[in-house]
């Protein structure tokens, strides 16, 4: 397959349009989410997940490190798990994943909406839903 020549331009020669910015944003947030998940797994292991949590519970905790995700596990003392640090990490993950996700949903739906008018509504509706759900999520993380 090595006879196939790549036609990709080097990043410095591509210029910065909105599409180029969102292309980079999608990839940067993907790597950011890997960072958040890794942090969650390492934190869980430090705080005693090894003997008190199942694999699924550790994954659930690592995906969003909010207080609700450590309830109903075998962890006896949840004090270190519900600190402001973990709430801040959960908020970061929520906004990173949410903005990555809402962009993805808009891109997918754009492929099935041929009219400009429909595409505008697609943007307004999805961004509106994202705003409301992000507020609900932040409320859950900081009041639980």
């Amino acid at each position, binding site marked *: *397959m*090595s*006879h*196939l*020549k*790549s036609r*990709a331009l080097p990043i410095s020669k591509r210029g910065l349009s909105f599409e180029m910015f969102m292309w980079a944003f999608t*990839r940067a947030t*993907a*790597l950011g*989410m*890997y960072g958040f998940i890794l942090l969650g797994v390492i934190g869980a292991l430090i705080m005693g997940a090894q003997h008190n949590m*199942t*694999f*699924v519970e550790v*994954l659930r905790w690592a*995906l969003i490190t909010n207080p*609700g995700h450590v309830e109903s596990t075998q962890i006896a003392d949840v004090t270190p798990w519900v600190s402001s640090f973990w709430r801040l990490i959960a908020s970061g993950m929520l906004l990173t*994943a949410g903005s990555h*996700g*809402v962009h*993805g*949903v808009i891109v*997918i739906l754009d492929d099935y*909406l*041929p*009219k*400009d008018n429909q*595409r505008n509504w697609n943007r307004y509706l999805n961004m509106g*839903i994202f705003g409301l*759900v992000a507020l*609900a*999520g932040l*409320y*859950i993380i900081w*009041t*639980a």
Partner: protein
Amino acid sequence: MGLQRNVSLSTGLRYKGHSPFWAYILHRIGGAGMALFITIHILATFAEQQGWKIGDLINKLYTSPAFQIFILFCVLFHAINGLRIVILDLFPKKLMPYYRQIIRAELALFIIVFGFAVFSVVTTALGRMS
């Protein structure tokens, strides 16, 4: 304005794009699945916190093994395929010529990780029953 396509669904399904095409379709299904279910999960948890019964009902569905296997498929495929896309895009000149081999390696990695996840979900569910 807008794109005009005159391709039926059955023609689309017979499209012979092979592994890159299926990776693209599954990436979309995984992403859309996550977006939908995480939105519902956040709203359900919000409802649960307010003491509305509908929240408990939805979140109880989410702890069922069948749903966990489905959402783990979405999350793990989207995450592993996404990492493949990021790595290919970071080094396009070196890696793009080998994209088919890289997708095969990715698929092997996905089967191992997803297999372990399914095994873990099933054994946890069996442990809870006994």
